[in-house]
């Protein structure tokens, strides 16, 4: 039976998605097993019910908080995709300071800011601390790496889309 696959981009650099695209011709192989029903490269507003979702990025703002809960509810297998999703990684480097300090620094104090102001409407409000996915929802599979290699993504997706549990042994498991 064909599976439904989604990929999501939360607080991250999209590098994991780049690595996903690096699957190149193997993407066609994936397409034989699953429909990519929701992804930054698919025009679909609502998050549908899916079999597998790859979530890139950490939970950084209020929107992410809502989205991740929704995704959890509508996904059979939720994969923390890449270091940001697994450890909060680079986005979390702001966590040692209160978000007000971080915002002031970014929008007002850095050189080159002209008449800076902290945006309030255009972008979602930051939450106090950047958090990895598993602090908010149950994560079924952790796929660390910054980014995980295309080979690794291929391996993990192949297993999951065939209802097998991938195994990250010492050779496959790596942060950074």
């Amino acid at each position, binding site marked *: 039976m064909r599976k439904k696959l989604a990929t999501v981009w939360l607080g991250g650099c999209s590098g994991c998605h780049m690595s996903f695209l690096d699957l190149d011709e193997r993407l066609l192989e994936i397409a034989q097993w699953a429909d990519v029903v929701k992804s930054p490269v698919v025009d679909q507003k609502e998050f549908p019910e899916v079999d597998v979702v790859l979530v890139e990025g950490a939970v950084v703002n209020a929107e992410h908080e809502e989205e991740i*809960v929704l995704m*959890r*509810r509508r996904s059979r297998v939720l994969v923390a995709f890449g270091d940001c999703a697994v450890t909060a990684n680079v986005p979390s480097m702001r966590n040692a300071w209160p978000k007000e300090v971080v915002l002031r620094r970014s929008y007002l104090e850095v050189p080159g800011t002209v008449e800076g102001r902290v945006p309030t409407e255009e972008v979602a409000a930051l939450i*106090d*601390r950047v958090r990895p*996915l*598993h*602090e*908010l*929802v*149950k*994560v079924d599979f952790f796929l660390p790496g910054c980014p995980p290699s295309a080979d690794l993504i291929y391996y993990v997706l192949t297993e999951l889309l065939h209802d097998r549990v991938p195994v990250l042994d010492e050779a496959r498991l790596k942060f950074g």
Partner: protein
Amino acid sequence: MLGKLDEITARVRQRSQEYRLKLQVCCGAGCLSSGAGELLEELKRAVAAQGLEGEVGVVPTGCMGPCNQGPLVRVSPDDTMYEKVVAGEAAGLVECHCGRGEEVRAKLLFSGGEGPVCERASEHPFFRLQRRVALENCGVINPESLEDYIAAGGYRALYHALTGMSREEVIAEIKQSGLRGRGGAGYPTGLKWETVYKHVSAEKYVICNGDEGDPGAFMDRGILEGDPHRVLEGMAIAAYAVGARKGYLYVRAEYPLAIKRFELAIKNARAQHLLGSQVLGTEFQFEVEIRVGAGAFVCGEETALIASIEGRRGQPQPRPPYPAERGLWGKPTLINNVETFANIVPILIQGGEWYASIGTPKSAGTKAFALAGKINNTGLIEVPMGTTLRQIIFDIGGGVPDGKRFKAAQTGGPSGGCIPEEHLDVPVDFESVVKLGSIMGSGGLIVMDESSSMVDVARFFMEFCMDESCGKCVPCRVGTKQMYDLLHRICEGRGTESDLALLEELAPMVKETSLCGLGMTAPNPLLSTLRYFREEYLALIPRRAEGASVGPSAHQP
């Protein structure tokens, strides 16, 4: 030399016989802070003013026990005790009791409470159920007077050991007594002495551990303040037995009075050749130095204590090697706690067999406890091992105040656990307390009533351990921080079931892998409250709405 001790004894006895009555004023730290110092002076003045100088003596003593009734006065030999005597009442008390020979009924000990009041203090359950061995002189003699100590039989045990016993015989006596370390772990004292004795070295050390860091424990403080010579004599006997010539008392900086009195004790003992180059006229030489701690609970751990005496950060070392083999300056070192040393003299005087006859077969002798928390009679007590917690808390301690219900007794401080009502009839000894998920510890006993949250208690102790973790080993340094954060979250009502699961996963790991006793026991308060009061944890965890995320906490620490 024995003649000199007898001579001093005779002199003191004769002087005290001149007095018809003796007013003993408790000058333990508790009573001093409620005004015992002024009271002492005022009583002396009143006695003089009423012309009773020749027949009524006024003397300070160490801690008498019932600390929250202070300042305390005992009239001897009438055996009458008065509570909460302020300086302004001194003249009236002297006039009434000493002048007219009438008791001041309204001021009798415990008359302010709900329990029984006795004209003879020793008949009150608070005293009647106690058996004072280590605290024998505490609250009886003047702790600042060497002569008083000698008159109470002091330094006879040392003399007896030095002149009439071989080192092996001393150790055999201690072994026979069944005495176990009173600092908490309960290691057999005689065995420890023997190990140090057996290690051949020109230099050896004896250390008295007075770093009583458990919050809620003040037995060692009571002993050091109330009977410093007893500890000093115990140390000297130990030094003779194991072959040491130098001893250290390591004591907390928070105990200035104990430091002062011990310093004085050393000075006076040296002057009388009870310390120094030829102790009591024998070849034995022994010097004692005080080392003052600087606020680190972990220094109660023996290897950390040694590091601290050596002027370093008080971080524990892996054992082996044990201090008995390689301790202070790398030399064989005997470390015993204050209360342990305080038990040595009576064992030598009355014999190991006598001591072993008190208490239970595996935990011989008596144990001092500091009662505090939600209990009527707070204070310092000493009971035979095997006394039940119920007797200690309800008969001696007078139960829980304000009509509240008893909930749990906490023993062993941050290393111990909470024992609930259903186990109150278990006889207290080293093994039984461990079976209940706590430890005997050094003797702090805190009573909690129904208004105390046990999760809060667990968090309180975890915060303590986190703050006091030396930072050397990872499980303790980070584990206590993680456990504290998780407990805090639960206390604040922000916890989840997976937080609880994490706690239960972390606690055994920290317990089993930490380097020293602090980390190994840090999870105890958490584990014991989880064992007996799990429903209190669950009650604090918000119930999740149907279908919500199943992951860990949606909240920040």
